[in-house]
């Protein structure tokens, strides 16, 4: 045996190793179909069922509800679901860790309350609306951080900490608003977050930028991987996805531009742009940063993550900070919808809708599995469902029952898919 003391492991041994097996699937358009079919057969459905579900819901309501299929209702729908989707983004991160945050509904309320208080004219502390929003988001993120610290450093289960938060922040809102009733928001910047509509041209420009973003990232990855023989996405798949994004983006803008309330023409709502911005930002954080990778690692196997030198408590705290921040942003969007913060805040079943959105979108409650896009798709489905049922004048009771059944159905389908996947050894 020859010895090279201290030789590193990446020195190739004398015997020439066999190269790693290449992907056996065909290339070109056939490859896209082969891959898709393989995924379906083995139960790896991805977002397919939820997209099909969404299409079905749209078709059903399109035929049954008279004023569902209108441009005005479409922009309404975007505004309604934007807040829920923002909260659901935060839920994804918390669930990825295998934790839960029950306080986000009332944290959204606290965010809205802070904004409303800071913009109050004649209060002596009136601030510019943008500054007020930044302070509110930072403050609620800090609250999230405190709750997360109790989970991470003291070791109290997140369910308990955030249940306490649920009660505490509900109490704070009650104390603040019991006598005042409602705080009206007059600052135009704050109200813009939900009601501002872009001009028709600006809308199409935004759609064009969005459409270009995806192929450009793919191109960048190819350049980064030059000369490394790393498997790349199929060009046909990239083209198909780009067309899909273009259809969605331009379609959204076209419908929104078409809307008219009395004489004023509508346009792409700012809330949609805010939503897409945070969707891209949080997807990037989850998928392409060291932090995001560590979130998945801690959720998958916290002990392995700790042994790998990852600062697990730090990851936990930061995730609750994100959860707080997204809750505050969602809360501000909701408040600007009604230009006020009232005792009835947060609206409806905000907390449960947000968690249901993430879970319908395929995010596991046990940690380590799920994507930000799942929360968006889930929120779109729940939003469409509830909006459609509302336009049909269905009672609130039935809306809850149907939402519950959809949640149960989506998770059941996901569970079956997972079992199929395991059987197929994938």
């Amino acid at each position, binding site marked *: *045996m*020859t*010895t*090279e*003391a*201290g*030789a*590193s*492991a*990446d*020195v*190739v*041994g004398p*015997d020439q*190793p*066999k*190269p*790693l*097996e290449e*992907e056996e699937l065909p290339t070109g358009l056939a490859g896209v179909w082969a891959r898709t079919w393989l995924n379906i057969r083995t139960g790896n459905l991805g977002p397919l069922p939820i997209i099909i579900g969404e299409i079905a819901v749209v078709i059903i309501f399109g035929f049954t509800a008279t004023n569902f299929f209108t441009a005005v209702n479409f922009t309404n729908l975007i505004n309604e679901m934007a807040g829920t989707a923002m909260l659901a983004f935060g839920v994804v991160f918390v669930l990825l860790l295998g934790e839960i945050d029950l306080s986000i509904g009332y944290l959204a309320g606290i965010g809205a309350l802070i904004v409303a208080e800071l913009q109050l004219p004649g209060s002596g502390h009136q601030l510019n609306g943008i500054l007020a929003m930044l302070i509110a988001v930072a403050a609620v993120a800090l609250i999230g951080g405190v709750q997360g610290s109790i989970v991470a450093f003291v070791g109290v289960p997140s369910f308990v900490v955030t249940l306490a938060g649920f009660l505490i922040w509900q109490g704070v809102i009650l104390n603040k608003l019991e006598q005042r009733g409602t705080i009206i928001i007059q600052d135009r910047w704050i109200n813009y977050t939900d009601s501002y509509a872009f001009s028709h041209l600006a809308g199409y420009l935004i759609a064009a930028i969005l459409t270009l973003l995806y192929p450009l990232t793919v191109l960048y*990855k190819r350049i*980064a*991987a030059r000369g*490394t*023989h*790393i*498997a790349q996405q199929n060009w046909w798949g990239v083209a198909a996805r780009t067309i899909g994004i273009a259809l969605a983006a331009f379609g959204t803008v076209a419908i929104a531009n078409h809307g008219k309330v009395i004489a004023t023409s509508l346009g792409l709502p700012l809330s949609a742009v805010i939503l897409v911005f945070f969707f891209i930002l949080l997807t990037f954080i989850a998928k*392409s*940063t*060291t*932090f995001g*990778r*560590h979130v*998945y*690692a801690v*959720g*998958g*196997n916290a*002990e*392995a*993550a700790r*042994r*790998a*030198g*990852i600062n697990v408590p730090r990851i936990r705290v930061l995730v609750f900070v994100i959860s707080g921040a997204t809750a505050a942003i969602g809360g501000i969007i909701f408040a600007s919808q009604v230009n006020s913060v009232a005792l009835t805040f947060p609206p409806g079943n905000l907390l449960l809708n947000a968690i249901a959105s993430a879970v319908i979108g395929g995010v596991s409650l046990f940690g*380590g*599995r799920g994507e930000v896009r799942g929360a968006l798709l889930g929120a779109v489905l729940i939003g469409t469902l509830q909006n459609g049922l509302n336009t049909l004048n269905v009672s609130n009771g039935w809306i809850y029952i149907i939402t519950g059944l959809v949640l149960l159905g989506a998770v059941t389908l996901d569970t079956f898919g997972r079992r199929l996947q395991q059987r197929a*050894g*994938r």
Partner: protein
Amino acid sequence: MSDAPLLQLRSLSKSFGSVQALNEVDFEVRPGEVMALVGDNGAGKSTLIKCVAGTHAPDSGQILFEGKEVHIHGPKDAAQLGIEVVYQDLALCDNLDVVQNMFLGRETNRFQILNEAAMEFQTQETLKSLAVTTIKSVRQPVATLSGGQRQSVAVAKAVQWNSKLVILDEPTAALGVAQTEQVLALVRRLGEQGLGVVLISHNLHDIFETADRITVLRLGRDVGIFERRATTQQAVVEAITAGLPTKVAGIPSTAGPETAA
């Protein structure tokens, strides 16, 4: 094979309360050598590797690495020296793919943004250099791998950081025959590439297939170092069950009151 030891433990002792887990143990590994560490349950194998890995601090004795005395206060210190431990439960994240596991906690990044291409390339190179050919795609989740493949990933993960000493805790437990062969071949290759390897195992058959030397621990003491070529399984079994301490005088050779846990 050079005779200067890579890792040398001198009179290492460690006790937990009244339990003497290690009692003046001497141990050494040379570069390019597979040193097996055997002993019955409670012989002190785990305590010994935890002292080297920095999980436990020894009560007394010296740890010498590459001839210099070192103090290892945690897994990070150990990694800095080039010591990597592959634990029995592997410490892999099932939900992450092979590349993500290989770089867990040490991701290649610029401004916190991951460089996936570099990591995937490096993973392929490392697996090639270890002749691990059974893994189809480095982008498949670890959950989908077989036990042997998982063990290979865990070992590859340990050696890709220019490590000099790799400690493997029961790498073939719970593996089938073919997969055991795979992993043992990988262990031999590590030695051939010049790394020091400590192989902890209950399976004497595995040890006689891979190890160059065998250190036997019994009740917290080292009771013998055997050259594999010059010994038999029977001699090793005898040492495991009834071995006498080689150097300590004045202490009864059979079990004292300080039966290690």
